[in-house]
């Protein structure tokens, strides 16, 4: 790890100002920054420690909305009674992410800034080509070991998969991220790689995530996060789905449906085609399975990750059907 200087911010304003220092990076939970600094991927010149800031870790929830301070720990949000009852998919996405220790460290704001697990991105000494790390250097992943790479939202420049769980749930429920002056939909906060895979988020110099807001809804109240992976726990998703469901009074017709995918795309992936295909339809297994296939519209595989195209619609379908059974 390259040496850096250390600044402890004592106010949000000080933290924002410190980000203007050359090579400055914010340190929250550290689970991405310290890890990537050890990999030689992150090379901060100044680390701005915001973990001692007061008042940024609050969690407030009512039926109308949840507001999560940027420094709220993933574990605390996962275990919060209001989140569990009003936004179960958010709680489930969180407790299935990482490990208990990492969830005690990682903050929800920091989690939005989590970087890809692409092994080529993470190993600069062996793989010099990585457009995300070094724009214009090429992509080592294309033509390489691609089992964990994205099938949706990829570009010629980058096929790195977005690995997070929380943001997948946030995108499904139209959450917003507060950056001080600006408030963005989480869906818009994450950028597609296109020709600029080094830009992953719509965040500007001097901005800092201060809060995440999730609007309440009937679909959010009846929601789940289904995560499929090789290992039972402590692993990133092979494919996952955050799904919320609202039925009409008849108990079988779909009024509202939210579907977002994790583990298969370059960013948290809202599957609106599935939602639109099923809204107004009677919930039955065949209909749901057929519509779930729409989640993969435009998918492109790179060999070893082809299975994701088969797997992801099944994950979506099972999540919807599971919610249907709980009627």
């Amino acid at each position, binding site marked *: *790890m*390259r*040496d850096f200087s250390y600044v402890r911010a004592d106010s949000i304003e000080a933290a924002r100002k410190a980000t203007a220092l050359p090579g400055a990076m914010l340190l929250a939970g550290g689970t991405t920054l310290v890890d990537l600094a050890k990999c*030689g991927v992150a090379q901060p010149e100044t680390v701005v420690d915001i973990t001692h800031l007061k008042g940024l870790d609050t969690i407030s929830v009512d039926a109308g909305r949840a507001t999560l301070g940027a420094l709220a720990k993933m574990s605390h949000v996962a275990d919060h009674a209001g989140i569990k009852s009003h936004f179960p998919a958010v709680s489930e996405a969180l407790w299935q992410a990482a490990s208990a220790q990492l969830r005690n460290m990682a903050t929800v704001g920091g989690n939005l800034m989590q970087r890809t*697990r692409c*092994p*080529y991105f993470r*190993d600069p*000494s*062996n*793989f010099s080509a990585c457009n995300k790390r070094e724009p214009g250097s090429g992509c080592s992943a294309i*033509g*390489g*070991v691609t*089992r*964990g790479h994205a099938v949706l939202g990829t570009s010629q420049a980058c096929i790195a998969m977005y690995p997070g769980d929380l943001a997948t749930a946030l995108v499904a429920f139209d959450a917003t991220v507060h950056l001080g002056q600006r408030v963005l939909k989480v869906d818009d906060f994450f950028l597609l790689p296109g020709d600029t895979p080094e830009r992953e988020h719509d965040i500007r110099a001097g901005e800092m995530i201060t809060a995440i807001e999730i609007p309440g809804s009937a679909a959010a109240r009846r929601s789940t996060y289904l995560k*499929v*992976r*090789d*290992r*039972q*726990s*402590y*692993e*990133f998703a*092979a494919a996952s789905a955050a799904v919320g469901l609202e039925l009409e009074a008849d108990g079988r017709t779909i009024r509202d449906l939210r579907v977002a995918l994790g583990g298969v795309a370059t960013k948290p992936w809202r599957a609106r085609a599935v939602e639109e295909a099923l809204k107004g339809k009677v919930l039955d297994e065949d209909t749901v399975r057929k519509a779930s296939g729409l989640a993969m519209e435009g998918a492109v595989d790179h060999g070893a990750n*082809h*299975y994701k195209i*088969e*797997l992801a619609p*099944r*994950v979506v*379908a*099972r999540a919807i059907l599971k919610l249907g059974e709980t009627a």
Partner: protein
Amino acid sequence: MTVHNIRHANTRHADSRHGDASDGAVGGRLSRVDGPAKITGAAKYAFEQQLDGLAHAVMVEATIAAGTVRAIDTRAAETAPGVLLVLTPDTIMEIKGASDWLGNPPTQKTYSPLARTVTYSGQHIAAVVAETFEQAVAAAALVEVSYDETPAIVDLSDAKAGDGIPIDVMTKEWGDAEAAFAAAPVRICAAYNTQREYQAAMEPHGLIARWQGEELTIWEPSQWLDGMARTYAEWFGVPFENVRLVSPYIGGGFGSKALALAHSAVAAASAKMLGRPVKLVLTRPQNFTSYGGRAATRQTVTIGAGRDGKIQSIVHRGVNETAVDGMWVEPLASVTSIMYATPNFSSKQNVVRVNTVVPGAKRAPGENPSAFGIECAIDELAYEVGVDPLEIRLRNYAEQDPEAKKAWSTRQLREAFAAGAERFGWSKRSPKPRSMRDGHQLIGWGVAAGTYPVRRAYGEAIVRILADGSVEVESSSIDMGQGTYTILAQTAAETVGVPADDVVVKLGDSRFPRAGVAGGSRLAGVMTGAVYKAATSALDQFVGLAISDPRSPFHALQANTLVVANGRITAPRGDGPDVSIAELLASVGRDRIEATGDTMPANSSAEDRYKNYTTIATSVPHTEGDYSRHSWCAHFIEVRVDEDFGTVRVSRVVSALDSGRLYNPKLAESQWKGGIIMGIGQALLEEGIVDRRHGRIVNNNLADYLVPTNADIPDIEVISVGIPDLHSSVLGGKGVGELAIVGVAPAIANAVFHATGKRVRDLPITLEKLI
């Protein structure tokens, strides 16, 4: 037979905190005597010693798989803060060639642990030593290397790999296997593949090296102190006695920590060059390329059988990968040739050179992949002839060793099948694939057998009876979790006649009496034998003094013998004095009784002894004499396969195992469960994945090379069906540590077939193979 079920183990037993007297005897369930140090953080592992002036070294590895190093630019690294030394092939001190683990003399006069010619990605080419770890890491990143790259052979499936080199000594043949196969009414032929798997011990490899004049002390996790000390002595041209290897606790080895490796040489060389102690710990990624995991293997198994499922012929062909510049043979027929009775048999094996680090020993090398082939193949035969997979194994039961044509010393495999099947409920199995389900989960039940030979060798120990009545045991053998500390305490306690709490066992220092490698599940049998012998000799001396020394309170008794039990000495009929060991020693004016026990043949020379402890050349064959000696096991495993996702989860395991007599069932059961769990990882998760363009393992870390987590493991029930086997060891035990992994992967693959109707012959069984 005893049934040990974790569900029953919750209730407090008598064996709990300290163990009672019977737990301290051989065969008792004494809790680990090294446990208190390990649960409080007090146990200092080898490279955790805190030394004054300690410098920190970090290795720099090759980023190509084949070629030559054109130049190494060290200027930036040398001027980086805190840097003390940058080592390259040009600047490292001369190191001599050392003999190999068989004792064969070196082929090269000098040894360069830093490579100029690169034969695999990750090979060490430079090193940086600095004042602090952080400085060394940062400076190592500044070393710039340029290469002339040549094409690499990346793995067994590389078109350039070819058919490899026949290993004639691996050929096993009897009868006319080809003809019998051609004539058989039922024929099975399939190919089975296992991938590169890694030991992935939680403690990384590393060491601290310190020179004091011509004396070298190495603190390094080691499965073989004396063998590694020999290597260091030869490398640096100092007498064997000048090298002290210290390895008090080992954070897992699984076969990987028996040899001094290139990074070890670099640490010792830099310590000598700097005149300061140097610590070098490999990063987790470096642990995937600095020594070999299990070689990738390919096997074809053909079975010719009658319609009744009785085997008439087995033809087996195997291939394992090895390195371009090193030889590793993973004996792929070691189970194939002995598990089932067959009148005709043929097995041949090749090795194929690829650009990898030399593969190495991982838990049950040979037996493990071998069992995957034959135990899947016989399952396929069972379905082919419509016979229950358990029944077909009994129908082909080998009543004697089919290869050696000798009687088994003991073989409780039939008992294992019976006990396991009973406990598992095998009779309730619905035979048809895909016929058992629970909602979206397809349920499958599979069975497979395993075996591991009894490897015997010789060992040495000192037993001292001390003035305070305690007993001290010393040996340069080691405890990496098998329980050596504990079972040697039990052996000494029972033999001398003191409570186990009064025994102190000291291991892990090459200054102690010698021991061979802790590998091949031999150490417990070897060392209990040596300690038994030493303790018996110490006891004899002690009783002899009590009888004959005029100052002894027993002198007047004119007894032929005396009884020592629970730390006290009495006459056999209890009709004389009753004194403590301490009191007796005081009365005869002795502060200790000491005896060395050694199980070497009596006429062994000093050279024989040196060779025995520092090479593996003197192991006693398991088929020596009239018997064939092996441990045996049967695994019954239930899997649940999600029909949509293809994910396989093991939901139930019942294994019945024959390791002979267990010196400590509590610890043996733990090792068995550990082997089963490693087998679950092998079956479902573990695979070193190579980038074929770079010839490099890309999942070289614990997030991407998946080992099982707690959440992947169900309750595991292990049943001991062993009986004492005195042909195998002095106290009747057979091997424990490697046995239980053998047969797990095929039991799971067989269960997956039963669940899904899909036969997966390539490990690991990942979800994309089932959707």
